[in-house]
């Protein structure tokens, strides 16, 4: 993968959307283009969830082979392509975690967070900034404890049982905390959609 001049984010997103549409129409060369544009971000996600290089590479292969098989699943009128692919990759990695024998969440969330002086790789596409601001705002509106548990579930793929054990509370308590948090999160996000 030769490095090339970095396109602006908007251009990169349009190029990706275009490649996804071509892939859905059966243009195979589009897959390599999509891979080149998104592999760094998607591999980062798989690696974070699975905590294992080999597992993450297998998951990444599954993501793109699957994408090739069912490119028509992406609806270009809905999500931004990189948001959709990021969710797709994370879902695949979580599936692997839940059905396989992998021990996930090997990297604690604080340790794995990007360092302040660490810039994303040049060709790592980011999801829409406005949408990002809103989810961070709504998450930030939750109490610290709930927010921490929801983040641990998202970034480390932890289960209710693991979260309850780590916090040393009964399973039912953890479920209750997170469900209340999700309800408030939903209300906050929905309010932002109406506005």
């Amino acid at each position, binding site marked *: 993968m030769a490095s090339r001049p970095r396109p602006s984010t908007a251009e990169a997103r349009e190029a990706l959307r275009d490649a996804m549409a071509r892939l859905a129409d059966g243009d195979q060369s589009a*897959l*390599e283009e999509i*891979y080149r544009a998104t*592999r*760094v*971000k998607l*591999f*980062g*996600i798989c690696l974070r969830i699975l905590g294992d290089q080999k597992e993450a*590479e297998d*998951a*990444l*292969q*599954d993501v*793109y*082979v*699957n994408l*090739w098989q069912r490119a028509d699943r992406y609806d270009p009128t809905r*999500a931004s392509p990189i*948001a*959709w692919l*990021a*969710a797709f990759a*994370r*879902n*695949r990695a*979580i*599936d*692997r975690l*839940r*059905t*396989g*024998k992998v021990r996930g969440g090997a990297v604690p969330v604080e340790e*794995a967070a*990007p360092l302040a002086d660490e810039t*994303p790789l040049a060709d790592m596409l*980011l*999801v*829409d900034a406005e*949408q*990002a601001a*809103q*989810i961070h705002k709504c*998450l930030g509106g939750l109490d610290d404890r709930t927010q921490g548990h929801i*983040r641990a*579930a*998202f*970034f480390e*793929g932890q289960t209710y049982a693991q979260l309850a054990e780590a916090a040393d509370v009964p*399973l*039912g308590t953890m*479920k*209750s905390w*997170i*469900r*209340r948090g*999700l*309800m408030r999160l*939903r209300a906050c*996000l929905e309010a932002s959609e109406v506005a």
Partner: protein
Amino acid sequence: MNGSENTPPQTPDDGVQRDDPMIAAEWALGLLEGEELLAARGKYATDPAFAARKEWWDDWFAPLTDAIPGAEPRAQVWDGISARIAAQQAAAAPAGDAAVPTNVVALEARVRRWQWVAGLTSAAAAVALALFAFAPGRSPVETPAQIAAAAPMVATVPIGETGLRLDVTYIPESEKMLVAAIGLTADGVHDHELWLVPADGGALQSLGVVTPGEVRSMVLPAAITAKLGDGASLVLTREPIGGKPEGVDAGPVVAKGAFTPV
């Protein structure tokens, strides 16, 4: 059965209504396991409102991934992707090459048998749907017409001398598997968990807890479909409610069966 806001199952240990939109949120966050995960996948395939809510959460959560540092995969990963795609193309289109007429004949025979099996499966599903009519609140099975068009693999798992059996149908291209546990009843103390035994002798992989008395459609992750070929077999184990607890050995094997292509 219609819409996603009905029949919220109450959980006694928390004060929050756990309705379908909540389950979609938990799924998007990655919290569902076992039978709940299977049920959610089945519902995703059959309930547009539920599917839309899951995708709504996925979209909102997606920007959080920007906080995850990117990482460069090794070059072999792309080679692996190319190889797998090339292999699938070769398998899917042997007719394009005049040098392999025998394959074409074999493919045609396989397609005819698949059509025959599809008819049978439809009939079985029709019976199952008729049974569902008396079980309100249960999600219906996805019809075989929707789950499509590749040669399926089937496995029958007879359960002891009872005459009962589990019918498992896997449609490769759709990554969907239909598990029919009609005739099985729950005893309230145990669940039965289905496991894939890969043909290559690899580790057993859980396919989840079987729902007694139902035909259920599930989407399989690629980690599992990769192992699901001719010669792969299935075992059914008896477990505590909810399936095998983490960190303990699986329960006794109560039934076995093997996948064969049709």
